[in-house]
């Protein structure tokens, strides 16, 4: 490894911006707990384990005392052993046995787990069987699992649509004997998805109570900013949190590399892509037999990097492979095995390998660009590191401003707090979708434990009013004859996949949004290094036909998006700025594609894409700046307006999730033009829910816009950067389309300063172009006793609207 570091330092001496070292940490160990049963201890000793990490023993104690337990752990800290050992230990001691439900966020993860329980499971195998119950489980196998397995691996989607609605028949025995629910990777249950899953857990707890069981939750999470608060919100109960990781950490080296600026033939300066560094690094690592993982931002990017690595070096093809979502399960498992056994030395991947899947330990991790969050950065970097050997993480900056900021400020990565995982199970829109499911499972009572009483009462009233629920004894039963779980998608709009056919064989799958951007007619689709030409994408039938092709270019789609407010529901003035809330139509469409030659990245042609747009209706608001402020900006520099809007758009996008307990992916912002009454066009900032139908996030921000703006203001005010950074406003916020504004932003801190000026205008009514100030214009606020009732009326109105949307959806589905 040291030789490799020397290679890195000499070859890229001019590009390395900084080098951080994290010291080695010794592991802290404890002896096996006294209560550990002999057969399990024997298996551990046979595997060469003679003591446990201290956190594993803490988990053992906590779980053995039947306390809800959360393990906050990093990769390779022996997580599986932490939770599985105490459960198995109790299982072999109990005469009757009990059942255990193990939930993983994705199918790929759950399939992987069956193997990792391995020899431990053999100890109890005679008495208990383990089965994976998900969408891929064949029918005969399902019956066997339902009737015989004591350990069932599944996912929240299956729990929601398969297990809970059938609790009274096929799952009665399993649920009545349920003692442990293991939920892995809980940090992934955040935002709208997390709020849905939290309601699924409410339903599970309720159904278990019906069958006389009250299971204990055992969870594990990657590092998040608020582990305790997050699991409390997700499971509605207190947890014992085991946060300190006692596993040993090797010495870790971090290199921040900025690829060089070069002059092109046209004399323009441009920065070389991360491939200019990652390709030689990967080749050298493979030559030295160093286990390497390289994270890219997109699936096709991983494929392209793979092709660059083996370009001219076909001998490397057997040691390097791309691994990404959309591969077939058999391909995926083959790669995992090859990697774990060391046959494969380097894997080029996307965030698909960020969590869970056991791929053995690696020594070198290359991050090709910033993964988007600090949590992901650490999670990905954590993939490298083996006991007793130092590990190496190389961060390669791309050209965008956030990457550039990080490469120049490595201390930001080391010191910035990890993001919080937020969710709100009482979100009225989401709760309203789960109440019919809940009633379908077991009649609803006047009040239900763990559900916010005000929103529950209102939603219950509405469902009674539209006769979805009918009174039955002292409760309310589901009165319709459909299958309500079918109309509720936990994962939003992309809960199905498009199959990719070559001839009559399925070679891969992809989500429908991704398909629009990568599988349009004539697109080049790369799959494990093979290239295919897309012949026809049929989104209606969820399939795409491709044929093998041999070309030396790849294609890239150019998207266009249009955000239109279709119906205005409410309007208000904030310090003379017009803010309108209503239905928003989001229309994103790949309009044309570019053909780009591999190696040289020359643009060698283009073609049209004729696909229907990806379109959805949601709710959101638009904000138009106060006239006075706009006028002042125009008189100073027209570009300030764009700078301010893009700056504020970035700030709001990052601050808003905090106020409505959402994930950043659930909310979107955009700057777009809207037509005024006199036919003129004006810039407007849009903020909307990135979820079909809307779940009330933007509504919440609309209602508390002042606090949102104040939060944005303090984020910028308290940031120590002085001139803009990803924590406040980056110099060039994403989305800027105008070359004029872009020029200004790159050369100055305009984004930050103008955004501050706009925030001040919106918060205090002050117009502050440098050195100019206007008087404050007061705005009257409605306050008083009728507030409570108004809130209720509003809530009722909102829920009524949402319920109508749901009703229509159910009708359509059935």
């Amino acid at each position: 490894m040291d030789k490799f570091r020397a290679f890195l330092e000499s070859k890229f001496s001019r590009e390395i911006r900084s080098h951080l070292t994290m010291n080695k940490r010794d592991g802290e160990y404890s002896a096996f707990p006294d209560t550990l049963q002999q057969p399990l201890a024997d298996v551990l000793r046979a595997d060469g384990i003679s003591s446990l990490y201290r956190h594993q023993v803490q988990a053992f104690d906590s779980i053995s005392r039947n306390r809800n337990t959360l393990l906050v752990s990093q990769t390779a800290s022996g997580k599986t052993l932490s939770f599985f050992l105490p459960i198995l230990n109790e299982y072999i001691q109990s005469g009757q046995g009990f059942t255990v439900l193990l939930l993983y966020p994705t199918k790929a993860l759950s399939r992987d787990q069956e193997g990792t329980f391995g020899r431990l499971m053999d100890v109890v195998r005679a008495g208990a069987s383990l089965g994976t119950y998900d969408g891929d489980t064949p029918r005969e196998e399902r019956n066997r699992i339902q009737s015989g397995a004591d350990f069932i691996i599944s996912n929240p989607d299956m729990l929601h649509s398969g297990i809970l609605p059938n609790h009274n028949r096929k799952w009665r025995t399993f649920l009545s004997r349920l003692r442990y629910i293991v939920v892995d990777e809980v940090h992934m249950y955040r935002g709208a998805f997390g709020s849905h899953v939290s309601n699924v857990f409410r339903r599970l707890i309720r159904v278990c109570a019906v069958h006389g069981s009250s299971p204990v939750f055992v969870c594990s999470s990657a590092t998040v900013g608020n582990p305790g608060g997050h699991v409390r919100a997700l499971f509605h109960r207190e947890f014992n949190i085991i946060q300190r990781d006692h596993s040993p950490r090797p010495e870790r080296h971090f290199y921040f590399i900025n690829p060089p600026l070069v002059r092109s033939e046209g004399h323009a300066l441009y920065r070389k892509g991360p491939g200019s560094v990652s390709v030689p690094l990967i080749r050298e690592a493979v030559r030295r037999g160093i286990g390497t993982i390289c994270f890219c931002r997109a699936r096709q990017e991983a494929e392209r990097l793979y092709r660059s690595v083996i370009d001219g070096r076909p001998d490397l093809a057997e040691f390097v492979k791309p691994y990404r979502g959309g591969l077939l399960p058999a391909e995926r498992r083959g790669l995992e095995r090859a990697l774990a056994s060391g046959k494969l030395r380097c894997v080029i991947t996307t965030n698909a390998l960020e969590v869970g899947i056991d791929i053995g330990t690696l020594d070198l991790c290359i991050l090709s660009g910033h993964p988007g969050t600090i949590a992901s950065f650490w999670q990905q970097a954590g993939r490298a590191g083996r006991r007793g050997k130092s590990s190496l993480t190389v961060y390669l900056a791309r050209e965008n401003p956030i990457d550039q900021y990080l490469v120049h400020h490595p201390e930001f990565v080391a010191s910035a707090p990890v993001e919080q995982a937020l969710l709100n199970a009482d979100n009225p829109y989401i709760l309203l979708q789960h109440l019919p499911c809940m009633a379908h499972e077991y009649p609803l009572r006047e009040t239900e434990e763990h559900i916010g009483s005000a929103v529950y009462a209102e939603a219950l009233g509405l469902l009674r009013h539209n006769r979805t629920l009918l009174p039955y004894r002292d409760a309310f039963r589901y009165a319709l004859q459909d299958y309500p779980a079918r109309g509720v998608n936990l994962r939003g709009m992309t809960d199905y996949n498009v199959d990719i056919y070559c001839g009559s064989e399925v070679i891969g799958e992809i989500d429908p949004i991704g398909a629009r951007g990568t599988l349009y007619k004539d697109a080049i689709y790369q799959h494990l290094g093979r290239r295919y030409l897309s012949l026809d994408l049929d989104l209606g039938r969820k399939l795409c036909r491709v044929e093998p092709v041999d070309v030396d270019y790849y294609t890239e789609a150019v998207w266009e998006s249009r955000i239109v407010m279709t119906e205005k529901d409410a309007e208000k003035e904030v310090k003379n700025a017009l803010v309108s809330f209503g239905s928003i139509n989001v229309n994103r469409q790949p309009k044309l594609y570019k053909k780009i030659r591999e190696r040289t990245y020359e643009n060698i042609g283009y073609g049209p894409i004729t696909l229907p747009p990806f379109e959805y209706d949601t709710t959101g608001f638009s904000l138009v700046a106060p006239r006075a402020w706009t006028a002042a900006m125009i008189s100073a520099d027209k570009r300030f307006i764009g700078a301010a809007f893009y700056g504020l758009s970035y700030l709001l996008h990052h601050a808003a999730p905090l106020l409505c307990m959402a994930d950043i992916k659930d909310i979107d912002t955009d700057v777009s033009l809207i037509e005024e009454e006199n036919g003129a066009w004006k810039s407007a900032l849009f903020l909307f829910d990135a979820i079909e139908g809307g779940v009330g996030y933007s509504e919440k921000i609309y209602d508390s816009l002042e606090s949102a703006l104040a939060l944005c203001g303090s984020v910028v005010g308290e940031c120590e950067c002085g001139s803009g950074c990803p924590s406040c406003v980056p110099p060039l916020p994403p989305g800027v389309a105008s070359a004029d504004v872009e020029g200004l932003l790159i050369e100055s801190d305009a984004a930050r300063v103008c955004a501050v000026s706009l925030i001040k205008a919106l918060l205090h009514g002050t117009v502050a172009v440098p050195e100019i100030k206007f008087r404050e214009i007061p705005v009257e606020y409605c306050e008083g006793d009728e507030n409570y009732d108004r809130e209720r009326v509003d809530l009722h109105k909102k829920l009524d609207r949402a319920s109508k949307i749901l009703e229509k959806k159910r009708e359509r589905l059935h």
Partner: protein
Amino acid sequence: MIRGSFTHARGIGPVAEKKLRDKGFQNWDDCFSRRKDLPFSSGKGARFISELQRSSAAHQKKDLRFLLSRFPVSEHWRILAEYINDATFFDIETTGLSWHYNHASVIAALHRGRLCSFVCGVNLDDFLDLLDEAEMLVTFNGGSFDLPFIEKTFHIPPVEVPHVDLRWVAYHQGYRGGLKRIESRMNIHRPPEIGDIDGYEAVELYYRWQSGDSNAGRDLVRYCRTDVVCTYMVACRILYEKGVDVAVQDRDWLFREALTCTVV
């Protein structure tokens, strides 16, 4: 009748029962009065008596749920014999056989001497009121079909009304197979208006009715009502064969009632 059962007590099989009967023990009261003559060891005798006392208390309180849970299925006829006039016979027709997508379309019940029907889209929900009134339910194969389908149709928790499944009572009397097969062995003839409609045709009738054929709806309700009447007759016949003398309702009147259809 109920008090003549012994095999529900733990440790009393056919051999022990025969010993008791041979010694002249006809019912629980004989056992209570001639406790000393019981052909058991003292420990077993005491257990037997205490179990009979519990059953006797349940019988006096008319705790049918307890009795039905204690009695082996082969002895359920005794409970039926004693309470047949308090029982609610019912039968359902469904929109298909899938647990996921189908539900009850018509329910007919013979309740307190009255034949009533409940029709989907008209008054199906009223069946829940009848269910709350019922003291004991009698069905043919209801344990695995009618009751789960009722729970599914109305999305209610498991029905807790005591239930006798005639299919198994008939089984122990030597009648195996479906209701229609048993009827023909017992020489019970359905009215010609019903013809030979079976369960599958009933599903078809439902869909024809939904697409506007009101005759199909009428036939479906009639068929369901006839099924209930036949279930009742099978029960009466079994009791007759067991030598029980119960006052039963008039067969011709019941069939005439089954054919009157007031709801559709």
